[in-house]
C-alpha cells in the first residue's frame, strides 16, 4: 500500500525540488538548442588557426568574446555546445519514440496473446539483451559508418526491449482485470480492447521508462560520437567535441570540460525529472526505494 509516512513526504518534497531544478536546466538546454542558429555567438564551424585553445572569456582580434574559450581549431566552444544540444536532444527523443512505439506494439501483442507469439518475442528480447548494448551499436555502425539517422535508427530499434518487457508485464496484470473482462463479455473486438482499455492503463509506466531512456540514449549517442561512430565529424556534437579535444588535454582544460558538463547536467536533470515522474504517475514503482 502507498501511505504517506514522514519519510515519503520528505522524499517527495526533495524529489519535487530536484525535479524543478532538473526542469529548469533542461529548459535551458532545449532553449540553447532551439535558438542556436539565432543566438549562437559565432558560426560553430568557423576556424581561426591563430586563436586556437584560447581560455574562457578570451576576446579575439575582431573584438568578439568567446565566453567558454576556443577549441583546438579556434572554433567557439559555446556556439558548438549550443549546436551540439540539438544533436543530443533530437537523438535522445526520436530514438525513444521509435523504440517506444515498437516496444509497446510488441509488448502488447506478446502479453495479450501469450503462447508461441509471446515465446518468440521474448526470446528475441533475450538474444538482444545478451549483447552488451554498446557492442551491438558498435557492430552495426562499424559496417554502416557514422551518420545521424543511423544512430537514431540503431538506438531506436534496439531500444524496444525495455518498453516491450514493461508493456508485457503490465498487460499481464491488466488483462485479468474486471474492466477488460467486461469489455470482452459485451463482445468488443480484441484490437479495441487492447487500444481502448489496456493501452491507457499501461501508458504511465511506459512514459516513466521512456524518460530514463532519453537520458541513456543521450549518453549512448555521445559515447558513439566519442568513438567516431556517431554523427559525422562535420556536425558539432558533445561526444565528438570531447573526442577531438582530448589530444590537447595537456594544453587546455576547457575544451574537454564543458561538453562533458553539458552531457552530465542534461542527463542528470532528465533523470531527476524521471524520478519525480515515477513517483507522480506510478507510486507502485518507487516503493522499493
Amino acid at each position, binding site marked *: 500500500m502507498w501511505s504517506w509516512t514522514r*519519510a515519503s513526504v*520528505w522524499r517527495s518534497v526533495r524529489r519535487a525540488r530536484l525535479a524543478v531544478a532538473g526542469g529548469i536546466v533542461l529548459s535551458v538546454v532545449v532553449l540553447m538548442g532551439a535558438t542556436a542558429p539565432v543566438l549562437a555567438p559565432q558560426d560553430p564551424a568557423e576556424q581561426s588557426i591563430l586563436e586556437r585553445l584560447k581560455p574562457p572569456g578570451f576576446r579575439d582580434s575582431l573584438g568578439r568574446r568567446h565566453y567558454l574559450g576556443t577549441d583546438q581549431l579556434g572554433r567557439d566552444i559555446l556556439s558548438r555546445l549550443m549546436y551540439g544540444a540539438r544533436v543530443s536532444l533530437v537523438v535522445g527523443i526520436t530514438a525513444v519514440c521509435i523504440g517506444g512505439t515498437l516496444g509497446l506494439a510488441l509488448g502488447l501483442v506478446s502479453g495479450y496473446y501469450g503462447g508461441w507469439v509471446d515465446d518468440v518475442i521474448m*526470446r*528475441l528480447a*533475450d*538474444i538482444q539483451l*545478451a*549483447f*552488451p*548494448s*554498446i*557492442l*551491438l551499436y*558498435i*557492430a*552495426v555502425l*562499424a*559496417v*554502416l*559508418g557514422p551518420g545521424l539517422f543511423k544512430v537514431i535508427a540503431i538506438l531506436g530499434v534496439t531500444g524496444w526491449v525495455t518498453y516491450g518487457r514493461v508493456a508485457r508485464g503490465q498487460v499481464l496484470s491488466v488483462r485479468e482485470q474486471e474492466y477488460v473482462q467486461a469489455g470482452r463479455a459485451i463482445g468488443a473486438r480484441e484490437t479495441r480492447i487492447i487500444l481502448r482499455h489496456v493501452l491507457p492503463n499501461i501508458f504511465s509506466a511506459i512514459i516513466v521508462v521512456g524518460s530514463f531512456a532519453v*537520458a541513456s540514449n543521450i*549518453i549512448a549517442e*555521445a*559515447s558513439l560520437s*566519442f*568513438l*567516431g*561512430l556517431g554523427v559525422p565529424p562535420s556536425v558539432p556534437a558533445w*561526444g565528438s567535441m*570531447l573526442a577531438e579535444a*582530448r589530444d590537447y*588535454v*595537456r594544453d587546455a*582544460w576547457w575544451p*574537454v*570540460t564543458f*561538453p*562533458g558538463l553539458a*552531457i*552530465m547536467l542534461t*542527463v*542528470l536533470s532528465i*533523470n*531527476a525529472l524521471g524520478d519525480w515522474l515515477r513517483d507522480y504517475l506510478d507510486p507502485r514503482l518507487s516503493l*522499493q*526505494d
Partner: protein
Amino acid sequence: MWRYIARRLLQTFIVLWGVSFIAFGVMFLAGDPATAMVGEDWTREQIAEFRHVMGFDQPWYVQYGRFLSRAVRGDFGVSLRQRQPNLTLIFERMPATLQLAACAMLLSIVIAIPAGVISATRRHSWLDHGASLAAMLGQSMPAFWLGIMLILIFGVGLRWTPVAGRGGLAHLILPAITLAAYPIARNARMMRSSILEVLGQAYVTTARAKGLREFLVITRHAMRNALIPVVTLIGLEFGALLGGAVITESIFAWPGVGRLTIQAIYGRDIPLVQAAVIVLAGIFVVINLLVDLFYVVLDPRIRLA
C-alpha cells in the same frame, strides 16, 4: 531443479545462436559486405577476387553455414589487416581486459556495499544524502568524460598517475575507477534499498529484541539476506564491464580486447570486429548462465520448485 537447469542451458544455446546470427547478419547491412571492408583505391578486379576469397559470391545461407560450422570448431576467421587468426589476437588481449574488469568489479564491491549499508543505517543523515548525490552523479556521468577528467586532474595536473598504457598498479588506478563508477553508483543504491527492505523484517526485530548489538544485527542478520539481489546484480554486471571496457580502453590506450575492436573498426577489419563481438557477448551469456546456476545453489526456493 534439473528441469530448470536444462531449460536454462537450452535457452543459452538459443541465445548464443542468435548472437552468431546477428554478428553475421550485421555484415550485410551495408548491402554488400565486400564494399564495407575494402579500401577506396581498390580496382574492380581486386574487389571481385576479394569477394571470391571471402566467399561473398555464395548465397547468404551457404556463407552462414560455413561461418557457423567454423565458429563451432573455434575458427573465427583471419584478421584482414593483421593476417592472424582473430581468436589468437583476441585471446592475446584478453588478460588485459579481464584484469581491468576484475579490478573495476572489486572496486565496485569494496566501495558500494559499505556505502549502501551506511546510507541505509544512517538514513537521511548528511552521509546518506552525500552518498545518494554521488550515486546520482555517478549514474549520469558518461564514462569517457570521467576518464578524461581523471586524466586532466590526476595525470596532467597533479602528476600522480600515468595517463595511458598498461604497466604496474599505478597504470590500473584511473581506468579501473572510470570503469567502476557506474556499477559503484548502481550497486550502492541497490544495497541501500535492499538493506532498508530487510530492516523491516520480523527476524531483524527479533534480533534487536534479544538485545543484540546493532552492529551484529546488521552484519549477521540484515546483510546476509540483503546481499542476495546485490550479488546477482554484480554477477550480471561483469559482462557489461567487458562491453564498457571498449570505451575505457580507448581513452587510456589500455591494450585489451576493447581497444583491439576499436582499432579494427577504424581499419574496416569487419571479421575481427565480428569475432570480438561474438567472444565478448559469448562471455557475457556464459556468465549470466553461471550466475543463474549459482542462484539455484544459493536459493532453496528455486532449487525445490
